[in-house]
């Protein structure tokens, strides 16, 4: 249908005709794939049932055209977390038109079987709409989602080998009376297993390795720390002023909550009827919060769940929803609604959602990691995300931000004192060397004890808080393999203790002579390192603490030398010849 505007004014009849035309044109798969995006304007103001009918018809179009790689993720998404029999059946059927069956697909098919087996229905895949109103209709014979999934497992052939244990478990479950498959379906499943065992006994291997994994394009859609985040996601100044209300009714701006630290953001809404999407997403967010706390990262990485439905999901609803799923809710972990509406966020994140009025008609699973400037650094879309994976990604982002902070500290110290140059990566050794050189230039005397005073202060100040940062620091030192050294958390208290021991020795020294400036400077330095730098994480506090400690130590040592020399000269004058 040439010139048909693809928007909400298109009737379903026109849409079905358009798709029928596109599926006969091998040059147009991109148009069909575009119609699978939830945020496509054609789904705007459509009911959920209409959206299901339309998406199902697009998926089925690939049966004739062949499923392109660019559409594979949408099919896998439906298998991974879909609960509509028509869409799951359509996805399973279109999967069979993919050129390269892969062992990785077996897990998705088994997951779909688990998701749909108790919600199956007779559907008609030869007719738009998919509703079966008669099981005797020979013109439009019906099938079920489970039947289509079993057919897809059969199509995988030896590639389904990895799913054999799951298939056996399903058979066992049904034998005990816990499953939901019919006798015919159970026979089908047994036949698939027998075929796999037969292949094994005959020594038939799965196809060559290029088919063993999913296409690279799948990975590209779940990229972490994307350095080429599409610019059309929006700029932070567009969203910084967005006002949220949290689960306690408190208002907070986007900039105030999401700037300054990395954060993990999930999207959901309380009226979602698919338990594999919003409810599971928020429950997993709660689990992620626990993992962050176990790794002592909960005060350095924020979490948030933002509702697609801010007009309905008021504070009380957010609070109840979060509580019932074990979500931690405090200053750094919030459930949020955008007070003025979801549109700016929708553009900024390019959210995979569409609406009829304010009601969501369809959305995808989506979780994002924002960096400390509120920029989207990583996304987890469509397929169920793993909490540990997200955690590691956020931790790496945090480590990168930390190294940037240390580099900024170096720059500040260089500006403050051009005679001293410290580099973050080898601060302890370089600082000691430079300080010793400076001391020789000034007084020509050896500053014995200065390395002992300085090294523990610097080591304490720069000691990383977690294994990821440890690896980041060591890798930044540029020595190959150094980052493989294991993380020793007990080193920090050891360094700090030794630092305090040295401070105590300084105090004892200053008691026996006049002048305690050195001790007080070193004590102030220790306070800045331990309390302000490590405890309160104030910027530049650790660096200032190191400087004061070294200066105080130098003064103390020099003063000691001078006092000793003066006393000797005094004694010499009093007792010549000694």
């Amino acid at each position: 249908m040439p010139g048909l505007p693809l928007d909400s004014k298109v009737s379903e009849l026109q849409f079905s005709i358009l798709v029928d035309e596109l599926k006969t044109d091998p040059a147009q798969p991109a148009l069909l794939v575009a119609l699978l995006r939830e945020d496509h304007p054609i789904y705007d103001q459509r009911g959920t049932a209409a959206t299901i009918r339309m998406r199902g018809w697009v998926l089925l179009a690939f049966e004739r055209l062949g499923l392109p790689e660019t559409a594979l993720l949408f099919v896998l998404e439906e298998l991974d977390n879909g609960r509509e029999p028509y869409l799951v059946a359509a996805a399973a059927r279109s999967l069979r038109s993919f050129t390269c069956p892969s062992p990785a697909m077996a897990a998705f098919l088994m997951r779909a079987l688990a998701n749909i087996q108790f919600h199956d229905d007779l559907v008609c895949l030869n007719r738009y709409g998919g509703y079966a109103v008669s099981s005797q209709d020979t013109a439009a014979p019906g099938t079920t989602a489970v039947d289509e999934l079993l057919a897809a497992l059969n199509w995988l052939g030896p590639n389904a080998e990895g799913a054999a244990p799951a298939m056996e478990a399903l058979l066992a479950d049904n034998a005990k009376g816990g499953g939901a498959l019919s006798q015919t379906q159970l026979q089908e499943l047994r036949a698939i297993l027998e075929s796999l065992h037969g292949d094994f006994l005959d020594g038939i291997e799965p196809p060559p390795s290029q088919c063993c994994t999913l296409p690279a394009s799948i990975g590209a859609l779940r990229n972490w720390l994307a350095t080429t985040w599409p610019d059309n996601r929006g700029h932070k100044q567009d969203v910084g002023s967005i006002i949220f209300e949290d689960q306690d009714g408190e208002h907070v701006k986007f900039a105030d909550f999401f700037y300054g630290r990395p954060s993990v953001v999930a999207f959901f809404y309380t009226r979602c009827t698919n338990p594999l999407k919003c409810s599971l997403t928020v429950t997993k967010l709660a689990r992620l919060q626990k993992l962050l706390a176990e790794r002592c990262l909960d005060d350095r990485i924020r979490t948030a769940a933002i509702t697609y439905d801010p007009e309905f999901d008021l504070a009380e609803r957010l609070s109840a929803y979060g509580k019932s799923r074990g979500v931690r809710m405090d200053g750094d972990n919030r459930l949020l609604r955008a007070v003025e509406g979801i549109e700016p966020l929708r553009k900024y994140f390019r959210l995979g959602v569409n609406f009829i009025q304010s009601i969501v008609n369809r959305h995808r699973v989506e979780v994002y990691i924002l960096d400390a400037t509120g920029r989207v650094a990583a996304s987890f879309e469509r397929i169920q995300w793993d909490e540990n994976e997200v955690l590691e990604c956020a931790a790496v982002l945090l480590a990168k931000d930390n190294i940037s902070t240390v580099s900024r500290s170096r720059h500040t110290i260089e500006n403050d004192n051009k005679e001293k140059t410290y580099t973050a990566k080898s601060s302890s050794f370089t600082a000691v060397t430079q300080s010793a050189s400076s001391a020789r230039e000034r007084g020509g005397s050896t500053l014995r004890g200065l390395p002992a005073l300085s090294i523990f202060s610097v080591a304490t100040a720069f000691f990383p808080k977690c294994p990821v940062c440890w690896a980041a620091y060591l890798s930044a030192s540029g020595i190959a393999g150094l980052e493989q050294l294991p993380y020793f958390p007990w080193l920090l208290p050891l360094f700090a203790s030794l630092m305090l021991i040295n401070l105590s020795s300084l105090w004892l020294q200053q008691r026996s002579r006049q002048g305690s400036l050195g001790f007080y400077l070193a004590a102030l330095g220790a306070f800045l390192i331990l309390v302000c730098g490590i405890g309160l994480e104030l910027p530049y506090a650790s660096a200032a603490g190191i400087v004061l400690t070294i200066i105080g130590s130098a003064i103390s040592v020099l003063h000691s030398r001078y006092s000793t020399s003066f006393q000797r000269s005094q004694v010499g004058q009093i007792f010549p010849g000694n």
Partner: protein
Amino acid sequence: MTEPTTDKSKRTSESYATALKTATSANEDTSKRVTAFAGVARAICDDKEKLKDVINVLKDTQSPQAVRLAALRALQSASFSVVKFTPCRPEYLTALRSLIDDPDPEVRQRVLGILAREQDGYTQQRLLEGLQQPDKALVPPEKALQLLSYDIHADAYPVAREIVRKPPNPAAKREALRLLAGDATSVPTFEGILRDKNEPTEIRQLSASALHSLAPKKMQAYARDIVLDDSESDELKTTSLTALTHFGEEATVSEDNALQKTVDTLKDKASSPDLKSSAENFLKKYRK
């Protein structure tokens, strides 16, 4: 199907078979068939033939209505055994869809109810069509709206708003408002109805409940005005007091002397026991 391995299970299986035979036999007396259907639910999904027999009775427009409804009840009972019934579910739902146009209104309505609770897309499509084109209506508009309200994603809000604007009958308007209680964009509609004393009390109460759900802060202001207004009905005052009691801002309400005084009077002098009780609960929470 698991073959009976003990005498007891064999006897049970036989009795089910006998009951099913009676229930599905057109030659048997109606009351006997209805009684027989009451005992066959557990056996319906034993094999495809048994399921087909029961479905055929349900679909047979020549069978007495009582027998057809008994067959439907048997299928519904069987569906509660989720695991056992699941293999039969696709055929069951398809059979129900085929009955959406059944000439018997009772059968039609029961079937639509089951399918609407399943959030069946085909059923929603047909119900909406009936609301938009009355000559295609399967059930009265108020019933259609009630059935569509089982699924907030059913795309029923636009037609419900139209029915509120131009109701075919009072019951339809009431059901349309009930359905719209989940639509955040309908807040102005509910505000307008709540303010309009010419609207029936039931409708205004419904609007108060909806407003309380969708915009609780706005409802607080309206609730106060209603309680203070002597001309308002006891039912509406009761709803308003309940909203204030459970969700009022404590600091504001506790310091509202005029409100406190009025509620005190209601506690002692209201003729409605519900209103008195609401007033007592309010004062328990907010009395200084």
